[in-house]
């Protein structure tokens, strides 16, 4: 565990970057430091690997004060990933990744073998090994940065806005990749960002810092969204807090209806049989069970449905895996007000109305609130 104990960083000109900050950063999980610029999040991160020394207070790693070991030994035990990757432009990709192992005295072959293994792990084509950084895209460079930080298998990974310089699509890919990697590796990650959505997506715990380097709230993301500590945190979380919180509720409890689903080649009897009073529409699927669109029962021709006449079915959610947010989104998107639940292969497993999603949200809130109370 990394323990930050009443740490203050004051500069000679009187500026206070970090003010009496105390945080216990749990092992093998992602802790995100988030806040507006000037909140001291990067300063805090840099105090952990002693690139900046605190004016007051102490930081310990697994109970030992970090100033008690040689600074370069400490740094080599902590991977560091930075915005724009900060790659060594004069070294090939494989040599960039092998930097720390080489410094730790590994043989050239062993270090390169490790680098090659890591390239595969972070999703880089082995053909890039002999390239130079300028030949890679921003997203690829950032993957190299992550691989380089992981090269000597350090227990701690410090990440300073690593994904903020790449475009949103690449960023989402890198975030998903980090979560997948973390599932495999279980590092203690401290992640700095100014993007609250990134913090909520990645963080096991999120520390919100306010300008002047004071801690505003330290909580799991779901709690942050449900119970912001004060107006600053609430404001920083921004609009749609309620909708975003739905990301933390599973769609597993939704009551999916299977009756209003018909295949595209259904007979008149089947259509009549599936038509019920409580569902005004029927969902038409292809022969494989994948959704095609909604239709009013009367508009359907037996045996040969005109797929061009069907109503859009929004965006299906994966039942049980996606959150209530995805289910609600699907229901809101379709003109029928019904969301389509699918399995992992995209086959329809059931449909659910906006009303039923709303019901599920209300009961999830009730459960969440009582749960929070028990925990608190």
């Amino acid at each position, binding site marked *: 565990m990394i323990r930050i104990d009443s740490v203050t960083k004051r500069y000679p000109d009187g500026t206070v970057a970090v003010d009496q900050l105390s945080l216990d950063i749990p092992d093998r999980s992602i802790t995100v430091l988030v806040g507006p610029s000037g909140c001291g999040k990067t300063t805090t991160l840099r105090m952990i*690997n002693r*690139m900046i020394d605190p004016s007051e207070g102490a930081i310990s790693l697994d109970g030992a004060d970090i100033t008690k070991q040689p*600074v*370069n*030994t*400490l*740094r*080599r035990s*902590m991977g*560091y990933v*930075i*915005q*724009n*990757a*900060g*790659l*060594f*432009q*004069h*070294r*090939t990709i494989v040599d960039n990744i092998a*930097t*720390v192992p080489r*410094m730790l005295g590994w043989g050239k072959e062993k270090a390169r073998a490790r680098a090659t293994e890591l390239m595969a792990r972070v999703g880089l084509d082995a053909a890039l090994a002999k390239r*130079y*950084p*300028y030949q890679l895209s921003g997203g690829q460079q950032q993957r190299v*940065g992550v691989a*380089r930080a992981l090269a000597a298998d350090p227990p701690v990974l*410090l990440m300073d806005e690593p994904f903020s310089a790449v475009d949103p699509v690449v960023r989402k890919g890198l975030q998903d990749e980090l979560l997948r990697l973390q599932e495999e590796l279980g590092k203690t990650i401290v992640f700095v960002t100014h993007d609250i959505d990134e913090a909520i997506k990645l963080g096991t715990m999120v520390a919100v810092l306010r300008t002047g380097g004071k801690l505003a709230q330290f909580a799991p993301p779901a709690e942050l969204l449900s119970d912001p500590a004060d107006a600053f945190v609430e404001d920083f979380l921004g609009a749609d807090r309620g909708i975003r919180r739905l990301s933390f509720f599973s769609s597993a409890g939704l009551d999916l209806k299977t009756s209003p689903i018909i295949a595209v080649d259904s007979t008149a009897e089947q259509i009549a049989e599936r038509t019920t009073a409580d569902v005004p529409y029927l969902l038409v699927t292809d022969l494989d069970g994948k959704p095609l669109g909604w239709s009013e029962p009367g508009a359907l021709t037996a045996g040969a449905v005109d797929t061009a006449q069907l109503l859009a079915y929004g965006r299906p959610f994966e039942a049980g895996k996606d959150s209530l947010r995805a289910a609600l989104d699907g229901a809101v998107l379709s003109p029928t007000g019904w969301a389509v639940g699918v399995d992992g292969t995209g086959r329809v497993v059931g449909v659910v109305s906006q009303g039923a999603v709303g019901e599920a949200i209300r009961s999830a809130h009730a459960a969440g609130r009582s749960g929070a109370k028990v925990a608190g």
Partner: protein
Amino acid sequence: MNDWFRIPSDLQNSYLGLIGLHLREAVIPVLVGLVVALPIAQLCVRLRWLYPPVLWVTTVLYAIPSLAFFVVLIDYTGQTETTVMIPLGVYSLVVFVPAIVDGVRSVPQETLDAATAMGLGPVRRYLQVQLPIAVPAIIAGLRVATVSSISLVSVGMLIGNQGALGNLLNDGQIYHQPRLIWLSVITTAVLAIVVDAVLVGVRLLLTPWMPRGTRKARPAEDRPEPAELVLEDAAR
């Protein structure tokens, strides 16, 4: 044709011998200048306040005519090659110090931060990161310094036949042989162009990591091409 390259006997050297001598007198001071400039430049990078005064001193030294240097040095080092090479080495500093300082400063801050965070100490960071990335700027400086040194060696004739190819100029005047003057000027110019081309080759070899399209986009960009300088000097 061979008559063209015949050298008067008072120079006690062949044509190729003079070229070798010329190269030695031009290149050794530049290399020594580079070795001296590296620590000075590193000091200037670390202590920012030191850079302006250092730049001022190198510029003033550059402004001292070589003849004045010779007058002082001749008491200590005599009428030797060393007397010619010392001012050339001193002159090269005016090119090297800013070239290296700019080169080392051009290393992006995040690259330096990454190196520090990976546990590279100051020495490793300098040798493994800053210096290699400064290579293009250093070689740009090396080109200017070498080429100007090649043209300046000729002044050595003033202290008694220590000017290598420059001695031919002197002989040409004494013996009224324009051939010798032409031979001196053209050989010096060709020598400078060839050495410059070799240095460009060295840079290409040392920097496979530079984007191809922008290989030239380095601090030396807006200075005149070194080869032009030597032609100007030779023309004087």
